[in-house]
């Protein structure tokens, strides 16, 4: 059937503009995928779970190298020496923040261990002059997001019958990746809302807006 249509004069630039937008979007998205090695996994696909009873988020993110006042090495302490995350980041089990350990915790060992190392000397100097190190926050979410470490540890670690506290690093790795590989902290998961929501969907977490955006 052929109905005579009112052929409106199309704007000649529309097609080019749309093409440009699409190409631009592809470039931006592509750059982020390539640059940051972002691999969003769709719901339901999970590799071998390291946390029994939970779907482990497999996203990754290539974080910046953020310098810190003391060039601490997680690889040495958490990796080689096998110190549990919760030994230093104690507050994670009873507060919304995991917390950077007080210098007193470091000095517990480092009054005698490695006292000749330059970073330890730096730390000792700060300790003796009552100076708090000014750490740069690496894993950060916006101020309008209310995240509680305590709740998440409660669910995946303490209330999880198959989990033992010595395997706490596996739970921390859900959002912080494998910290045994890095020196100072590096962001290894996107920590975007999509990242949170997917894990909540997979692990029966709350989906009510006001739980996190109160």
């Amino acid at each position, binding site marked *: 059937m052929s109905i005579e249509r009112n052929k409106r004069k199309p704007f000649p630039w529309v097609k080019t503009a749309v093409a440009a937008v699409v190409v631009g979007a592809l470039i931006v*998205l592509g750059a982020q995928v390539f640059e940051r090695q972002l691999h969003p996994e769709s719901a339901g696909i999970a590799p071998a779970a390291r946390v029994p009873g939970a779907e482990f988020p497999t996203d990754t993110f290539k974080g910046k190298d953020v310098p810190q006042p003391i060039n601490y090495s997680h690889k040495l302490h958490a990796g080689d020496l096998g110190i549990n995350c919760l030994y230093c980041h104690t*507050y994670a089990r009873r*507060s919304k923040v995991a917390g950077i350990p*007080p210098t007193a915790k470091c000095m517990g060992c480092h009054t005698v261990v490695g006292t000749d190392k330059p970073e330890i000397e730096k730390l000792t100097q700060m300790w003796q002059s009552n100076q*708090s190190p000014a750490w740069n926050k690496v894993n*950060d979410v916006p101020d309008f997001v209310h995240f509680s470490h305590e709740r998440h540890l409660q669910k995946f670690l303490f209330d999880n019958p198959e989990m033992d506290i010595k395997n706490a690093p596996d739970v921390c790795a859900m959002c912080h990746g494998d910290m045994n590989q890095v020196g100072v902290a590096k962001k290894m998961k996107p920590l975007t809302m999509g990242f949170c929501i997917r894990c909540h969907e997979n692990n029966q977490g709350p989906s009510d807006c006001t739980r996190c955006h109160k």
Partner: protein
Amino acid sequence: MSKTKINRRNFLKVLGLGGAGAALAGCDMPSYVTLEEGEEKIYSYLAPEEYVIPGVGVWYASTCLQCPAACGTHGRVREGRVLKLEGNPNTAVNAGKLCQMGQAALQAHFNPDRITEPLINGQPASWDDALALINEKATKNVAWMTGAISGHQRVLLDAHLAATGKGRHYAVETINARAWTDAGKAVLSDAMPTLHLDKAEAVLSLGADMLGTWISPVTFMGQYGQFRAAPRGVLMAVEPAMSLTGANADQWVAAKPGTEAAVALGVGHLLMTKHGLSLNSMPNATSAFQSMTPARVQDIAGVSEAALNKIADTLASRKPSLVVANASHAAARVAMALNIMLGNVGKTLTPGASIVADPLAPIMGSTKDLAEFAQNADAGKIDAVFITGANPAFIAPQGLNMAAALKAVGFKVALATCHDETTKVCDVVLPLSSALEDWGTHVPAYGGKPGVVHLQQPLMEPLHAETRGLGDILLTLGKSAGVDGLEAFEDYYGYLRTAVSAMIGSEQEGDWQRVLQAGQFEAPAQDHAFSTGSDVALGFSENADAGLHLVTVARQGLYDGRHANSSWLQEAPDQITKAVWDSWAEMHPKTAADFGLKDGDYVSLTTQGGAITTRIFTYKGVHPKAVCVPMGRGHTDYGRWASNGVNPLTIVDAHLGDWQSSEVLATATPVKISAVGENRHLVRLMDTDQQHGRKLVATISAQQFGRTQGGA
């Protein structure tokens, strides 16, 4: 015709693709802007106490100093900062509640206009220089001016005065209960009897704003709830302009300013003649009651016979009742006589009790002291004055010539957290710690358990390096003046800890910690001697002026103006008019019409003391012969948020020569008004008193209700 074709299919395809791109970009792609890495700082602790957990607040007990009531508080502290204040549930004065002024203490503490260093003649100086100058100049004829004060701060202050020539301590409070306490002392030998609002079946208030600013509002608020519980008490209020208490009254009676005593006498008259009560123990009162007929009350106060009868009938039929008054000394005395006649003594009015350690007892303050300071300063009797917790340059009526009086004092030292009109004229200004950074003990004047002492402790480290606490400054001054026994103490904390340990009879750390946790401790108290019915002259005199009178009232919030530098309290709407951030003059619509004025018209209010210009607010809750301008605004030098409104305190009658038997700020000042030709809308929250047909509050007349619901 162009070759390009946008047909529907292509358009939808592009839309879908673009939309998907946008969605992908929104929820999941890390936004370089929102998710920061390495932007914020975390300052870790060095060696925190066990109970200090980042992210978890710890509560500490302290005391609120936003008004003289001294309610106990709990402050939530997180990561070394106090973030929220609540009432201390264990202090009887406020039973866990905290009024808006208490909440705003947080803002007073973090106020950006805090004084951060000592000043000499307006120039920054060191503490050493400032203290050296004080040692040089403040050696004799020294006076202290403070607000209401109690506890160990008072002890040190008295000691300093004793060591510098036995000068006088002027305790100045614009808002006070001196009318009531003087009457209590005269009639009952008890300046502060205990009132049992919760036990009363009827309450008559003659200008005593129990729920707003009178004595200890939070205490009365708590009792008021019980007063209104079944069987529901009846509240009556007589005042020239509606207060918060008046707004809650079942029967509100507008009386001409300054005539509340006459109304009370009229009530007494009816109680005697109509209800057969008698007061034989007080013949003076009896004859005063007898001669005040309802017709005279109508004449003097503009209160109708019907209204007067209703009050008397209520008081006679509901027992026990309670009559409170603060409008004038005479009204308070009549109220005491009425309480005796009604048999309330022993039921709703019982002997008060005070702490035995008299040097710690509270001095409540008055404007009588303000007037006497002006008089003595003018007469050259004061060589040096220390001023803290008072702003005489702002609150003094013109008639007291406070500016000249202050000038006549050779050396003036202000201890303050923020600059105000008074610090501006002082030679030395010492930066004070805020109430949330300081130590202290405080004995509540009313509402606490007898003998209770409230503890004030710092809720965080001082915000500013060079501020010092009041107690610390008093200790330093005391040592320089040679007061005995202070050398052992390095700071006020040490002094206080020793003093408190002596009072609780233990030096154990655990017991001190328990006191800090509770925020209070009990010291021995004794009941007041109490005698009913000293037959004093009631002191009533008629106000002959038939014209318009200015009244200024205190509204909880800005109080006497001390909180005008709090944006929270400026923003909090006035309880009666719901106005914010500016002044107004409440005027009855009939009066406005008589003067050809409409709501919002600016008028000049002129009294013997001066003139102020502000807009009128037509309101039926004010006597037609009264113009009410609430106090609190009109600052000229009080920080970034206080430059608004007008100050009625300057133009009220100073009642010079009369302040022995009345407060300087007594209620009736003759005033003339004239329009200045401007009109501006007063900004109010919920800017209407009408429902505009929206049926927000459905009403039905009692008659109709009786008919339709079969009510008795």
